[in-house]
């Protein structure tokens, strides 16, 4: 039976073959107040693959994620999810596409008036009305246990550390069992131990769930841990894309400089 997501995406573009990448970004441009942030960027991510997008601050890494999940619209170019263009979808149709996506914000963006458990329950309450209250509570406990936060269900976001907030944000992003996971600076602002723990956690979840993921970071170490493929951005476009070894062997001056400084 066709889901609302299928209907929304089918109306966006005719169905394509089953080999389409989960995320395909083609020739994407985005400017803010005349300043070019993305300059014709193209990327693709397949099922079970994690792509780390690296680059200096302000090179449009976070903007790329916001465009993919439809929080901003590109000036030109296309974004396809499972082979179907998402450009021009209404907010409700885009919502159907977003149910397949999990997004971890750089700031975690937890709802500050809700407890940790309520934050994770929030997407379930809206999209899994078939679950009973106790089933939902079990699911929330399970998700929080996965990220090591099962002991902090009733705490408010303001009462937990930045690293813990990221864990809760991750649990919330996973609540609807997404096929796509978008992580915006998951280790930014964390101490090396917390950063390592978050990296390990993402890797573990990735192995278990086989999602297509994009991790935006400027932390080369965590990018190497989490992702199989890395894309280095400069001035709004991909300078190099490949495994970490490919970056190491590159003769491009910017790549060498970035690796040296990281």
């Amino acid at each position: 039976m066709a889901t609302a997501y299928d209907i929304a995406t089918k109306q966006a573009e005719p169905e394509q073959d089953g080999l389409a990448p989960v995320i395909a970004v083609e020739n994407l441009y985005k400017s803010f107040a005349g300043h070019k942030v993305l300059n014709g960027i193209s990327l693709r991510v397949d099922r079970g693959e994690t792509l780390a997008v690296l680059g200096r601050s302000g090179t449009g890494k976070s903007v790329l994620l916001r465009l993919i999940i439809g929080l901003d619209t590109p000036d030109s170019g296309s974004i396809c999810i499972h082979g179907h263009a998402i450009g021009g979808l209404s907010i409700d149709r885009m919502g159907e596409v977003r149910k397949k996506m999990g997004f971890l914000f750089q700031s975690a963006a937890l709802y500050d008036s809700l407890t940790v458990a309520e934050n994770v329950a929030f997407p379930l309450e809206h999209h899994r009305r078939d679950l009973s209250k106790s089933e939902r509570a079990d699911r929330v406990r399970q998700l929080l246990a996965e990220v090591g936060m099962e002991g902090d269900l009733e705490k408010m976001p303001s009462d937990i550390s930045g690293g813990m907030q990221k864990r809760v944000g991750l649990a919330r992003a996973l609540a609807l069992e997404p096929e796509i996971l978008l992580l915006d600076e998951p280790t930014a602002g964390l101490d090396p131990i917390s950063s390592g723990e978050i990296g390990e956690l993402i890797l573990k979840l990735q192995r278990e769930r086989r999602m297509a993921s994009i991790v935006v970071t400027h932390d080369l170490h965590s990018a190497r841990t989490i992702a199989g493929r890395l894309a280095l951005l400069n001035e709004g476009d991909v300078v190099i894309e490949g495994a970490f070894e490919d970056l190491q062997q590159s003769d491009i001056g910017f790549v060498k400089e970035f690796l040296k400084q990281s």
Partner: protein
Amino acid sequence: MRPFIGFFEWFGSLGIFSWQVLRAAVTPPYEWRELIRQLDEVGSKSLPLVAMAGAAIGVILSLEARYSLTRFGAKSMFPATLVYSVLQVMGPVITGLVVSGRVGAGMGAELASMKVTEQIDAIEASAINPYRLLAATRILACILMLPLLTLATDAIALLTGWFAQALVEPLSFHQFITNGFSGATFNAFVPQTFKTSVYGLIIGLIACFQGMRTRGGAAGVGRAATNSVVLASLFLILSDVVLVKFILVFFP
């Protein structure tokens, strides 16, 4: 030239925002739980404030009316003067302005804070329409609660107005009400009370619009709260000009 463009840009954005909210409000899923929470927030929690404002207005009008009517030898008109001035003018406007101050600022600041901390983006990223969850519920709560709060203001203002008069010279409450409402028709009071739904629409719409378009951190949140109150109060008074004329024409 820039302020001129900004003026039209603001109204254009408000129009687009209104359309998005309207479309979200009439299409399922409906956010009943959030609506009930907002009805409580706008209604029950504003009640003490509008009650106090109503009490003060009742006493002030009573003192002023008695003084003026005595001067013109029309003291017998006191109950009707008080009833008509409370129910037709002061009750609705004072309720609107008090709610605009409390609810407008609260909603504007709350939504602005959610916006700058990316919580509204997080709602959207969770495949939930923020126009439906945050704006439609708040605006609808304002539309529904304003007439009820106005009735409360009216009742308390009449009670304190009568009490202030009764302290000076004997006047039974029964006599006050009977004289005050003698000759009163549906058209004299009901449209005046229900016009406050339009005030509610203005307060909710402006507060949600200002809050959800905020940029610029803490300063932006402050600006959103201030602008919500100032603009909602201003548009509320301006709308009254049109509403009074409309009521006089259609409910003579």
